[in-house]
């Protein structure tokens, strides 16, 4: 089934609206929630007691987690010593995608578009056939956006 981006957006909006209607309808029907309640959470000493007595283990674990996340984020985003090898990653250009979309079967598409892998493969096939027709020697080595060792 081919779903265009516009239809998908409309479907998502309808889903969100339905979810909100169900939740709001449920909440408005609960009589006990129509007032502010008996208590008030403005007790700073109670917060200190909750954090450092009742949930102190969770607080310590959270501190370790935050430290680990910070170190992990720094490691992941650290500057690269060597620039990435462009032949090592699939980065089909927009022209490749458009050419593949023109040639692809719409029934296989996702959200009305073919996937990038299908786009790269279709563009590669077109380039290979064009290259073979012109020179008769070029093959899979001219595949755009594919790893050399694939």
């Amino acid at each position, binding site marked *: 089934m081919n779903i265009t981006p516009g239809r998908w957006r409309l*479907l*998502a909006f309808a889903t969100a609206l339905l979810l*909100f209607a169900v939740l709001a309808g449920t909440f408005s029907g609960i009589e006990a*929630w129509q007032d*502010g*309640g008996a208590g008030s959470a403005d007790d700073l000493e109670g917060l200190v007691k*909750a954090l450092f007595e009742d949930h102190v283990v969770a607080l310590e674990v*959270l501190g370790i987690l935050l430290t680990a996340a910070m170190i992990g984020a720094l490691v992941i985003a650290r500057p690269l010593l060597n620039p990435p090898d462009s032949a090592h990653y699939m980065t089909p250009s927009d022209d490749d995608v458009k050419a593949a979309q023109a040639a692809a079967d719409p029934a296989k598409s996702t959200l009305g578009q073919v996937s990038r*892998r299908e786009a790269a493969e279709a563009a590669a096939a077109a380039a290979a056939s064009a290259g073979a027709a012109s020179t008769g020697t070029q093959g899979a080595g001219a595949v755009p956006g594919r790893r050399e060792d694939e």
Partner: protein
Amino acid sequence: MIPVAYAVTLSAALLCIGVYGLLTQRNALRILVAVELVLNAANLNFAAFANYHGSMDGIAFTLFSIALAAAEAAVGLAILIHVYRHVRSVDVLKSTRLRW
């Protein structure tokens, strides 16, 4: 005192906006923002019911949740930086290496 139903309805609206963003956006940064909206909807519920019951446990859970959201955002943004270096885009449809 604000009725707790108002806060919960606002939280439901935040949740629905976040779900809509998760379903429609292709930019990974916008998806991260949508996830934060969903998390903040949960935080709002925690705070509202803590106030409703007069207990500070809900406020403590809210602080924990905010810290978790910060950790998630830090790691998510770092992954995004890494992805951008290799794909030259943060469009989730362009990152096809891990697609099944």
